[in-house]
């Protein structure tokens, strides 16, 4: 993609997803560089407001990735995350953030290829949706 990079934030849990991204890197798997990773201890740590704040500050897309349900390093963090983030995923389009801009998923630390797939598909989707210009006001620079 020779276009300008989109602003995409990824909240990756330290144990599984970050490890998965690491595995992808070690295996030299290529994927778009738009997505900037924020490492969190667990997907359950992701306060839905962090996602909301990212969109309020102009993010074009936000992805949350954690351990597969049942494999959470902290046993149950991702169970809570699944409920919160599913609700958020349904609420955001209602409030003006198009479906597709926010996704949550599960990637384990050995799934380098899966991470490559997720990051690539998500980035492509955000490019397809275009930049989020919802907050622009008259008189903005």
């Amino acid at each position, binding site marked *: 993609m020779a276009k300008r990079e989109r602003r995409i934030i990824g909240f990756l849990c330290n144990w599984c997803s970050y490890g998965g991204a690491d595995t992808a890197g070690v295996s030299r798997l290529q994927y778009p560089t738009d997505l900037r990773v924020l490492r969190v201890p667990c997907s359950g740590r992701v306060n*839905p*407001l962090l996602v*909301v*704040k990212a969109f*309020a*500050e102009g993010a074009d897309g936000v992805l949350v990735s954690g351990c597969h*349900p*049942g494999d959470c390093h902290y046993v*149950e963090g991702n*169970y*809570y995350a*699944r*409920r*919160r983030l*599913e*609700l*958020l995923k*349904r*609420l955001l*389009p*209602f*409030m*003006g*953030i*198009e*479906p597709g801009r926010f*996704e*949550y*998923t599960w990637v384990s630390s050995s799934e380098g290829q*899966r991470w490559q*797939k*997720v990051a690539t*598909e998500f980035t492509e989707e955000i490019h397809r949706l275009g930049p989020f210009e*919802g*907050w622009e*006001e008259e008189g903005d620079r």
Partner: protein
Amino acid sequence: MIDRLREAVREKLQELDLVIGYGEGYDPLHATPVFIQKPEEVDRLIWNPLCVHNLATYLYELRGKRVGVVVKGCDSRSVLQLLNEGLIKREEIYIFGIPCDGVIDLRKVAQKVDIYRVKEVSWQKDAFTAKTDRGEVSLGLEEVLQDKCRGCPYPTPVIHDFLAKDPVKPKGEGEGLLEQVSELEELSPQERLAYWRKELERCIRCYACRNACPLCVCQDFCAAEARDPHWIPLRDRVKEKWMWQMLHVLHLAGRCTGCGECERACPMGIPLLRIRAKVNKELKELFDYEAGVKEGVRPPLLTYQVSEPKIEERQW
């Protein structure tokens, strides 16, 4: 009916520190909360479709006192939710329940009559007449009831110690609020964003919506006003106002009982209730959950299931 209520309050007043009910407001179109402490004040209590306030909003700040409170069906759900969350104690409250046929939305009335110049109001069956210097306007209650009242699923208080009249049957399954939600769901995402930008732009961050909410008990320490972490800048742009509503609604997820006080309190007429109605609709669909209808139920976001049958996950 009002006599039965007054009698019950008069009797119970001896065991209580105070009773919160509805009294006459500053003009014929407004009721107001009254705080009754002496028997001679009991006759101030009234009941009519202008009694819109959710008096449960005062319960948290009065904890430690023995408080009687007059509630409609929707208000009683707030009381039950406060109890479920352990924010108030059952033995400290006495609930005077009023089965309700609906309350008035003054914004709808304002479209037919100048609500700031009404001198007199008289009630008929299913209608009322408002008199100004320019003449009289009669309005059928049906056309000016709040949206939440249409299809009200819980018109009779779900928890009470005393019921002022016979229970009222459910009017439906919440069609009024569901329609508010589906109206927006039918728009395209771009139309929806334009809609919220237009509506939220009027917000002045007065926090009337927050303070009127019975479940918002953190008011003095609200995350929206915190400097550390500083969630919301003090700037006056739409994105800040959007962020405030998202914060409020997410903090209320699983706790909001759909009483609509937030929208009623908003001086700018922003349609806030439908955001909360959307969250409540999703929670019902996902987890078969409604706040404040059953005792002892844990809010859905404070628990989980190992397998979630209703959550369909994105495939890559």
